[in-house]
């Protein structure tokens, strides 16, 4: 592969690129998340579609310069629809040897490596377990466009006489890297200067320093002859409207708050901090004026218990967690099933079993969501497909929980929760309110109230404390099918088990039919669920023109009515998942005769588009 030599400034050309993926990597304390999100904001303002994903260690601060302490942020921006944060970066910004070592293998061959060569001293090389300086290695220069920049020294020069300590000066170097990127991608610098001012309002000396360094980085990239070209990513054709960026966890919190507004009822969120779900509780605790009450309970069980208690009182009880917490909550979810009270459980999946890989993504809680309770305890299960979709999924989970008087499990994952994308803010009136009705009068002969007397859809009434005359008791013991009082009668139990199951089956009236992207019948159907939507849709687009279609399941229970029909319209069904084949197993059980092929990666990362495409091509023969 030939790598072009650097060109003099005068000959520099502006190259149009449709999409680009940039990854910023450095030590946990180097501020990679900061510059990553700042560059993302600038790209959003420039009209790009985008998708981002941070990658940070489970330890808050692993030893400086160590391999374990590398933190990263990847952004994929494009002039067309962007579905994922990108398979392989086109540009890697590496701030130290450890960051280079842990990320270089992902950089696309021929991609650009901007590296802080100043950090490649003996001590850092040793911490990264390099025997010799990789920047002097010919292989590196052969495979990539290496741009070594003495960011440490250049930052120091920029801040000479600033009065900051050398430690404080060193902290500014991330903005040097950001300044270079702004020049390379032709971003206007003024909004960034404003943003730094806003960020450091309380410490103006740091604002000045970071602005100086940012501008120095920009000027350096412009005047040095290290860069052959500059790049422009055109604006994407996005649906017109007002936009903001959201991570999946933010969007989930916003969706729950929106549900409070649309239903006119209090949302009560009782949770316990757990990675990667914590941000939902954090965000929500600011939404007091939106009728959201938050409660950080003493443990996972108390979190969901408080939510069920609030639901008994007429609020929309919600709880948020991740795998280990879901396991702890399972007895409580069973109680919500038998009580038939509305409840939303959000599970932001992470690598398991046990503590597993808290900061890494996985889709391995599907079967637990569907079946992980003792006794016959069915409940609706849905999964969000993108960070922005977490908003709509959370609202839908609430709507279903209230309408059907049932707990609902919403699955997202670490990839969606931490990932971000532009989110079009719905216009006023665009979102439909959903009514909540409490029972306020007796519903049975003799002026009695029967809490388990059902309507035609098998839904029971919701009567809340404070309503005179409807005083009643609910509990975890099997209950009489009308009065709700304790019943040990076997036939009554069988009736109740079947009734509860039928009620959840009836939810299918709210589940839209499965839509197919691509040919309505043919060779291969890609079937996905949850957070893999982006990777699989991008793969299907890449396979355009071939006999390949894509269908995505938002609802896992109940499944759309036409699921079997869709699956039978293709010779082969391929289920790509970030687990060992859970949807595939479920499909085999639900649709006898269909034996889906599997594509499973369980490496803590989103699915790679190129791998899915290769797999499909192999199937097509």
């Amino acid at each position, binding site marked *: 592969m030939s790598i072009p030599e650097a060109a003099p400034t005068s000959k520099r050309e502006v190259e149009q690129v449709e999409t680009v993926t940039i990854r910023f990597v450095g030590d946990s304390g180097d501020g990679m998340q900061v510059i990553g999100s700042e560059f993302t904001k600038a790209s959003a303002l420039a009209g790009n579609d985008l998708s981002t994903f941070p990658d940070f260690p489970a330890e808050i601060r692993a030893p400086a310069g160590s391999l374990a302490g590398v933190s990263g942020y990847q952004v994929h921006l494009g002039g067309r629809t962007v579905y994922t944060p990108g398979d392989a970066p086109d540009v890697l910004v590496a701030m130290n040897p450890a960051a280079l070592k842990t990320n270089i293998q992902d950089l696309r061959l021929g991609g650009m490596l901007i590296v802080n060569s100043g950090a490649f001293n003996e001590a850092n090389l040793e911490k990264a377990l390099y025997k010799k300086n990789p920047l002097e290695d010919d292989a590196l220069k052969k495979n990539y466009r290496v741009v070594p920049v003495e960011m440490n020294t250049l930052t120091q020069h920029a801040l000479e006489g600033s009065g900051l300590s050398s430690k404080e000066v060193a902290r500014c170097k991330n903005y040097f890297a950001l300044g270079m990127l702004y020049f390379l991608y032709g971003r206007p610098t003024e909004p960034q200067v404003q943003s730094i001012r806003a960020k450091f309002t309380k410490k103006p000396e740091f604002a000045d320093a970071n602005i100086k360094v940012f501008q120095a980085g920009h000027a350096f990239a412009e005047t040095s002859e290290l860069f052959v070209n500059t790049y422009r990513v055109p604006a994407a054709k996005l649906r017109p409207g007002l936009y903001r960026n959201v991570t999946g966890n933010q969007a989930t919190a916003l969706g729950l708050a929106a549900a409070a507004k649309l239903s006119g009822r209090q949302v009560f969120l009782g949770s316990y901090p757990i990675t990667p779900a914590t941000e939902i509780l954090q965000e929500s605790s600011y939404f007091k004026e939106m009728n959201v009450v938050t409660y950080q309970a003493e443990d996972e069980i108390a979190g969901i218990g408080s*939510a069920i208690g609030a639901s008994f009182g007429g609020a929309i009880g919600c709880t948020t967690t991740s795998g280990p917490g879901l396991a702890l909550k399972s007895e409580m979810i069973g109680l919500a099933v038998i009580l038939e009270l509305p409840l939303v459980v959000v599970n932001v999946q992470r690598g398991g079993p046990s503590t597993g890989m808290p900061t890494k993504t996985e889709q391995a809680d599907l079967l637990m969501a569907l079946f992980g309770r003792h006794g016959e305890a069915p409940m609706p299960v849905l999964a969000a497909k993108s960070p922005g979709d977490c908003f709509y999924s959370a609202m839908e989970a609430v709507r279903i929980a209230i309408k059907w008087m049932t707990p609902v499990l919403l699955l997202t994952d670490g990839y969606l929760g931490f990932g971000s994308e532009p989110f079009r803010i719905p216009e006023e009136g665009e979102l439909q309110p959903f009514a909540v009705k409490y029972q306020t009068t007796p519903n049975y002969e003799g002026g009695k109230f029967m809490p388990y007397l059902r309507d035609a859809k098998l839904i029971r009434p919701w009567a809340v404390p404070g309503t005179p005359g409807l005083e009643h008791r609910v509990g975890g013991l099997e209950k009489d099918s009308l009065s709700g009082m304790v019943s040990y009668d076997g036939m009554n139990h069988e009736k109740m088990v079947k009734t509860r199951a039928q009620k959840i089956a009836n939810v299918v009236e709210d589940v839209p039919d499965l839509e197919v992207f691509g040919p309505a019948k043919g060779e291969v159907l890609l079937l996905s669920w949850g957070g893999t939507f982006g990777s699989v849709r991008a793969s299907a687009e890449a396979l355009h023109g071939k006999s390949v279609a894509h269908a995505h399941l938002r609802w896992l229970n109940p499944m759309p009515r036409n699921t079997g029909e869709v699956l039978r319209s293709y010779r082969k069904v391929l289920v790509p998942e970030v687990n060992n084949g859970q949807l595939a197993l479920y499909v085999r059980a639900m649709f006898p005769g269909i034996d889906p092929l599997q594509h499973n990666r369980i490496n803590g990362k989103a699915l790679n588009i190129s791998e899915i495409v290769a797999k499909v091509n192999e199937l097509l023969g």
Partner: protein
Amino acid sequence: MSTTNGTTAAAALPTYTKKDFESGVDPRWCPGCGDFSIINQVQKLLPSIGVARENIVFISGIGCSSRFPYYMNNYGMHTLHGRAPSFASGLKLSRPELQLWVVTGDGDALAIGGNHFIHTMRRNLDIKMLMFNNRIYGLTKGQVSPTSELGKKTKTTPYGSADYPFNPPALALGAGATFVARSVDLEGAHMGVVLKSAAEHRGSTFVEIYQNCPVFNDGAYTFLTEKAVKAEAQLRMEEGKPLLFGKDNRKGIRFNSQSAELEVVTLGEKGAVEKDVLVHNPRRDDPTIAFMLANLSNRPGFPTPIGIFRAVKLPTCDDLNWKVINSAKAKHGDVSLRKFLSSADTWTVE
């Protein structure tokens, strides 16, 4: 206060009788169970506390005591083992205007539910917890409980328990409860007074009720309730009165400032006079003396205190939360969804 309840409160409270609080379901406790006496006192109390029947909620976990809500004609939840405080906490925060009672037992509250117990106490949520302490697992037919005595022989400790028991009021005090009391199933009148004070207290309220289990731990409290020993064995704590006990109230509890301990004195002996005796004050901010009193029941040669150990006023967790919520609502007014969703860096796509 804004609530989730769409209905408005009734103008005047009906005149209730005890019967209004009976659900009509016959209690299924064993004949002679102490629980009958407790529910009787609670049903006698509720007509007089000035709270509408529909605004009272009983929440329980699992165990004999936890069947309680089924027999009360209020709103009620029979939940999971040990978890009743968590439901009550959520409901109280969500609907602070409701009066919440948690009914629990020694196993439910202190073994499987120990974590919820201490956190409910320390938060000072306005929740009233009645813990029936029979020092045994009754519903599972006779296993050692966290309040069983050291050496207790049960089905799971055939050679005697090697576990030291909890002292529930001491635990509640240590966890920060603002109201801590103890009564006895057989002492109906005493229990009635304690329960009334509990009903009136705002904040985390813990009442331990010694309760006899005639089937699996019969006679657990005869050392305290038998006529012959009662006067010597019980220390009745009454606010503003000296801590006297024994036949003709001849004994008293004195604070020994040398050893910094409580000690028993006999009036008229070794120069002890009534003014040396500690005057009971459950309203001290510092719970230290209350804690010392609670621990008397562990000490040989001391009487077992019954009555109110502690009753102090502190802003409740629910009040503090709603102060913040209401001020946020007052500050922002009715926020449109669009405005709420737009409160971030935004940009327009044409």
